[in-house]
């Protein structure tokens, strides 16, 4: 009797577990499928290459938002990548196991837990008002740097730590300084991992809305300088859906966003897989 009931519970539990997996998969399919089916028909060459009309009309395409997004990502990366890599190098190669290091790590982890809107208000207070950059690409980019720094640092640190210790020992044994060892041996070996980190950050930057909403303004024109406002693709989705009620255009823009995200995910996975293989092959 007991044996039978154990088997029955086993069956029920397995059904529940599979059910959980299937529901998760279905959720994803429904979301992506719905956006693509509703949005893709409206995506054509004209949509991609005209500027949105702005204001309260939902007319026009998405050209200026694409340009703003690229602009924003460019400025963000210029600041983010050096600081992020430097920070990761310090943590993985130099940091002694002491109180100061723990404080730095605590800072990074707390920063990772603060939500985007709080960064936005911080950016609004510091960059927009105190430093008076106004609502601009620069304010948005600086806020994004603060937001993305933890991701960049932790992912790069993982990549640096994956480089075998024998490399470092061999380099030092040949009489290099520590910096020569890092810049000529460790960093080049970790490059695919660092590229993965950068792409991960780009993905997050593309999807970010809340912190940019309060720092970048919503100008629909192509920004001509760093101190001019703009709107990114995801901000554009928000404006279309909430302020102009142009749901069809919002869906089309969302479809473009989803395709970009799928491509970025695929690229990250491919790179990470290659990196792992390379590290294993070398070990």
């Amino acid at each position: 009797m007991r044996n039978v009931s154990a088997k029955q519970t086993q069956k029920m539990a397995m059904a529940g577990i599979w059910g959980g997996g299937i529901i998760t998969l279905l959720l994803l399919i429904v979301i992506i499928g719905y956006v693509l089916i509703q949005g893709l028909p409206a995506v054509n060459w004209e949509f991609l290459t005209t500027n949105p009309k702005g204001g309260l009309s939902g007319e026009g395409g998405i050209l200026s938002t694409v340009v703003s997004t690229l602009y924003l990502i460019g400025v963000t990366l210029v600041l983010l990548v050096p600081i992020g890599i430097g920070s990761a190098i310090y943590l993985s190669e130099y940091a002694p196991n002491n109180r100061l290091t723990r404080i730095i790590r605590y800072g990074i982890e707390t920063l990772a837990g603060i939500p985007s809107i709080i960064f936005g208000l911080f950016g609004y207070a510091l960059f927009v008002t105190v430093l008076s950059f106004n609502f601009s690409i620069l304010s948005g980019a600086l806020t994004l740097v603060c937001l993305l720094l933890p991701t960049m640092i932790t992912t790069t640190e993982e990549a640096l730590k994956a480089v075998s210790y024998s490399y470092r020992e061999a380099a030092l044994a040949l009489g290099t300084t520590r910096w020569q060892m890092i810049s000529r041996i460790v960093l080049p070996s970790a490059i695919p991992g660092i590229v993965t980190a950068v792409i991960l950050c780009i993905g997050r930057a593309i999807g970010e809305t809340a912190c940019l909403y309060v720092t970048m303004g919503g100008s629909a024109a192509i920004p001509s300088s760093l101190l001019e406002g703009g709107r990114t693709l995801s901000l554009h989705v928000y404006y279309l859906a909430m302020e102009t009620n142009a749901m069809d255009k919002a869906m089309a823009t969302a479809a473009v966003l989803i395709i970009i995200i799928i491509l970025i995910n695929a690229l990250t996975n491919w790179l990470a897989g290659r990196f792992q293989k390379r590290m294993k092959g070398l070990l």
Partner: protein
Amino acid sequence: MTRYFTDKLAKYIVFISGFTSFIILLLIALFIFREGLPAFSEIGVFDFIFGGVWRPGIDQYGILAMIVGSIAVTIVSMIMAVPLGIACAILLAEVAPSKIRSILRPAVELLVGIPSVVYGLVGLVLLVPLISNIGGSGFSILTASIVLMVMVLPTIISISEDSIRAVPSSYREGALALGATKWQTIKGVVLPAAKSGIGAGIVLGMGRAIGETMAMIMVIGNSIAFPRFTFRCRAYTDRQHSTGNKLCYRHPRERALCYRCRALYFYITVKQRSYYLP
């Protein structure tokens, strides 16, 4: 000699960049206290947190409605997300053959990558009309909770899966050798051993739930009526006031209060952090 100089220089530069994150954290804290503390003394912590009415026009500043809204949405979404997430994590770590895992894993990763506006948009177009069939306008705690559930799911799944994987296989072999079924092994041995990791996943998921702004503002409605409001929506609306006016905020005191919400939020984040840090 120059390479030794470069070595020293690099060390300092790298140290400074290592410290940047901490400086940013300090700056955020500084701005919160500079802007938020004066308002605290003006109205009083109690009235602020337990005041039910937010109406700056008549000098009423209570964030209780937002707190209730935040807690309600978080609890309802966690009730849905936790069982689903743990089931999915067990499937990925223990049950599924590698072929299915190679489909499900990227799917979960993709769920993380989808921007929150897209979740909000789908919620707005697909879910809101659906929920309004049941009753009300459709902009509700329930709608927001469902959207949030999908958003926190990947966090719970991936962290739970990692911690289930970290359970040594000798535990499983021991249980199976004693004649336990697979489910008995999972329930009696694996899950208890992975308990702390799963807990961390749930706490992190809750962090994401409390912090989410854009998707929420799109599906929860923009009213300040009692339970329909959350922290982030408040902070968000404060910005809306600011755009309509050349001054920073419509009302200087409201601006201070906005910062006070942040102070409170920041405190919660730091507390929550210290809970699951080793």
